[in-house]
């Protein structure tokens, strides 16, 4: 079990292939995680906005249920 990092005459092929793979996978991961964080933050911001105008919700009658239902479902998220 010896780590062999001397790629000899194939170094110019092996390292670029591994390097590109690492860069692409890292980009995929970063993109997915950043987008997840950004959209959850946006959702939280909108929900907090919803909490404030209580009177407006009551005035809307049936509509008042919906934000709350959405909130309870979303509340378990994060």
């Amino acid at each position, binding site marked *: *079990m*010896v*780590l*062999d*990092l*001397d*790629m*000899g*005459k*194939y*170094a110019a*092929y*092996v390292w*670029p*292939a*591994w390097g*590109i*793979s690492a860069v*692409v*996978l890292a*980009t*995929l*991961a970063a*993109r*997915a*995680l950043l*987008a*997840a964080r950004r*959209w*959850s933050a*946006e*959702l939280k911001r*909108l*929900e907090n*906005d*919803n909490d404030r105008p209580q009177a*407006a919700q009551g005035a*809307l009658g049936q*509509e008042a249920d*919906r*934000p709350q239902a*959405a909130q309870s*479902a*979303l509340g*378990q*998220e994060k």
Partner: protein
Amino acid sequence: MFGLANPDRFARFTRPLVPVLWAAALVLLLTGTWFAFTAPEDYQQGDAMRIMFVHVPAASVGLMIYGALGVSSFFALVFRHPLADAAARASALPGAAYTLLALVTGSIWGKPMWGTWWEWGDARLMSELILLLFYIGYMALRASIDDEAKAARAAAVLGLVGLINLPIVKFSVDWWNTLHQPASLIRADGPSVAEGMLVPLLLMMAAYLIFFLAVWITAIRTEIVRRRVLSIRARKALEA
């Protein structure tokens, strides 16, 4: 199975799963890499063989991802299920990335082994390129139609059509006489890969698969959140 088709239930069920998947993918990638560079040199290809450990997983998982995209498209089209559409949409980018990696690393491997970066007449290379074009076409189509429901339906049709290409990619090496070697892992007489290379290869295959699942599920969850944000915004615009 169908219970999970409810976006809320899916979000709740996958919440504890996501960090586990990311951690497992990272551990598998690191151990796979370690084994890839401790495996003995190939007696024919020397160190160039180590490209296999990033090429084969990207190619085979990239092909599987299209299967997931096609099946999700089918459910989105037939049952009009929003989660199926989210799943199809979320699989396109990682699928395209894996297929691109398969093409690029294959090309880099081809130069020292075949003496050429690319061979237009090779059925495996061409069908793999067409697979990449299906992924790109799918994303471009979605991006080009403003109405999300219409975009989803058009993309689902394209996604389904692309399924035709899957057996062509898989069996191109058997149906035609190609420069590309035939399958060496999944074959009737067992894998034909030397034992020292089999362990890192299987580890890297598992790593690429789990890594995709981590990206995919994270992206589906984001898509669910994004749609909620859009619907809240739309409602607010109506109320205002």
